[in-house]
């Protein structure tokens, strides 16, 4: 339990420095001032005046917000009150708390404060999280313990809560599952999301440079006339690739530096970040499986990433990360020790599934190629013919990815070539089955099974298994309630109602 209190005052300094409030109100003031400044129409006095005004306004708004923002934890709820004129009060029941994230951007770290995000299961009305920006570093540990332990032991166990304030670093049993080896960051240039960072920054820079009023002399300097030599072009391309690769490496390092995954009490805690330090806690009791995914790039170097499937967790991909990058065998080991071991070998799907993969990967480019040839465009036709040949490899690879298996308490599904994913799901997470069978599948004796779960994407596909395999999997994983799929109709209360 925690008496009503305000946020840490040091956040005012951070907000003033970053113009957080002022930016929200005068979002266009900055660029306008910049343009005036560059064009020299604003005296240095005017510039200083604008800066001072912005700082004062920012500080004033921050202070008002800080003054009217309070939070407390009573026996059952976290209460957050805020608002300048129209007051709002959000109550998050402690038994709805699914996780607590602590995030400390660089500036926050300088002042030893952090942003606390309380992630609550849907059903609390409106948004699913409460944000405390910011509390002192000492308080974050204590708050996290209160929010997570009270939820675990229930509101009756007041003694635990009473003991908390004195012990910010509660001696909870900790078991480390994974630590990021810095060498694994070398995989980052093969991951799309990290590659996107330098590309996006480059794009933004380019756009801003173009929109800035650059004096004519400078522009001439930028537009170097190119004496297009093949060697020079190749060199430029190589340099660009190197820059992008290094950028991806840096992006990967910035977000994942010092990644540690550990079990602390009844939670899995993941810490990471070079500048912004993030700590994400996941309730172990809510973890229902994992996704091991490999984009084509990292699959070639036998690496993978690991995400947990957690019921009622928003933003699963970001928050559920169990290992951002690592060699395949390490990732598998972490999945086995932190979530569950699944050793049953996957059953391959029937040959008809291979036929369907090949028809899909080879068919369209082959047809277009023939059409182009008939239209008298041999060059374009040959390009598509090459694509069709590559499609053979893609189709075979996609087929080889297909597989499924069940053990006593879980099922596993694998699929995908460009993005291969192996999903392991606990049986108890299942909320239903969906079976799809197109006319073509019916003729080939195949069907697609979707395991519906209240976690992750909501459903995971078993693509093109044989009808028998599908029914076997359903029977093995959901004994009892799914019998209706293959048994004779039962005549129960529900049915009699319709007669």
């Amino acid at each position, binding site marked *: 339990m925690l008496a009503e209190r305000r946020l840490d005052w040091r956040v005012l300094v951070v907000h003033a420095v970053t113009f957080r409030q002022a930016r929200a109100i005068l979002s266009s003031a900055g660029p306008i001032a910049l343009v005036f400044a560059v064009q020299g129409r604003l005296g240095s006095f005017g510039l200083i005046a604008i800066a001072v005004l912005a700082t004062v306004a920012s500080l004033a708004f921050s202070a008002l917000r800080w003054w009217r923002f309070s939070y407390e934890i009573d026996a059952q709820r976290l209460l957050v009150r805020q608002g300048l004129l129209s007051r709002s009060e959000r109550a998050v029941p402690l038994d709805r708390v699914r996780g607590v994230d602590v995030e400390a951007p660089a500036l926050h770290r300088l002042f030893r404060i952090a942003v606390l995000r309380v992630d609550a299961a849907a059903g609390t009305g409106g948004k699913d999280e409460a944000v405390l920006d910011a509390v002192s570093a000492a308080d974050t540990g204590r708050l996290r313990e209160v929010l997570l332990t009270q939820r675990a032991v229930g509101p009756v166990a007041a003694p635990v809560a009473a003991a908390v304030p004195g012990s910010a670093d509660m001696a909870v049993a900790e078991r480390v599952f994974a630590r990021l080896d810095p060498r694994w960051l070398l995989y980052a240039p093969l991951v799309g999301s990290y590659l996107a960072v330098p590309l996006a920054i480059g794009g933004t820079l380019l756009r801003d440079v173009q929109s800035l009023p650059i004096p004519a002399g400078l522009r001439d300097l930028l537009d170097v006339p190119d004496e297009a030599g093949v060697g020079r072009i190749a060199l430029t391309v190589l340099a660009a690739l190197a820059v992008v690769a290094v950028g991806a490496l840096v992006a990967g390092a910035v977000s994942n530096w010092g990644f540690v995954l550990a079990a602390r009490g009844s939670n899995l805690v993941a810490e990471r970040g070079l500048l912004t330090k993030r700590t994400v806690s996941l309730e172990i009791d809510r973890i229902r499986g994992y996704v091991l995914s490999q984009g084509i790039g990292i699959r070639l170097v036998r690496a993978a990433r690991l995400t947990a499937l957690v019921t009622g967790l928003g933003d699963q991909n970001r928050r559920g990360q169990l290992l951002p990058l690592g060699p395949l065998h390490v990732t598998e080991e972490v999945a086995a020790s932190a979530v569950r071991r699944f050793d049953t070998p996957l059953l391959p799907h029937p040959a008809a599934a291979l036929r369907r993969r090949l028809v899909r990967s080879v068919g369209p480019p082959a047809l277009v190629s023939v059409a182009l040839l008939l239209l008298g465009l041999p060059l374009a036709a040959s390009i598509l013919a090459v694509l069709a040949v590559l499609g053979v490899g893609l189709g075979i690879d996609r087929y080889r990815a297909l597989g499924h298996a069940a053990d006593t308490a879980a099922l596993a599904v694998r699929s995908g070539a460009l993005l291969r994913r192996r999903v392991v799901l606990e049986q108890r997470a299942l909320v239903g089955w969906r079976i799809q069978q197109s006319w073509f599948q019916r003729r080939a004796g195949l069907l697609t099974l979707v395991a519906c779960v209240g976690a992750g994407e909501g459903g995971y596909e078993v693509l093109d298994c044989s009808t028998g395999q599908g029914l076997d999997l359903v029977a093995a994983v959901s004994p009892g309630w799914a019998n209706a799929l293959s048994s004779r*109709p039962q005549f129960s209360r529900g*049915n009699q109602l319709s007669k």
Partner: protein
Amino acid sequence: MTHPAAVPRTPAYQVSPNAIGLWTLEGAISSVFLLAAGIVAAVLVPAEAPTVVRVLAAAAPYVAAAYAVVAVAIRPRLRFRVHHWEVTDESVFTLTGWLTQNWTIIPIARIQTVDINRGAMQRLFGLASVAVLTASSKGTVEIVHLDAAVAGAVAPDLARRAAAIRDEAT
């Protein structure tokens, strides 16, 4: 394990026969609009338009008429034949679709909410739909166009049984 019938079976019940009337009415309404549009296109097409456009415009009323025949005389009956549902002791079970068939089965223990929906047109035909929702966005079932009385009995029964045996594992 072997399966006597190597396909999932068909649920026992069909939707209300009144659904045919509703689907026919819906088909008729869309046909009227399409026919009107087709006739307008055929009448108003300028004589100096390219041949392709004129041929297409001339064909439009006939295409619309063909659609009307399908939508009014054929599709409602076909739809009726491919909608099946059943509530067993432990699950809700539906099958819909013709070229692509879709079976959905949900254990009653995992049902979160059961809704009854009655649209204006459904009211006209004494129909109602029952929507069964779970924690998964993909694990939902909608039994469309039941007899209002059947829906009114099935939905509360499902909700009551779900509340009695609900487990919170999801």
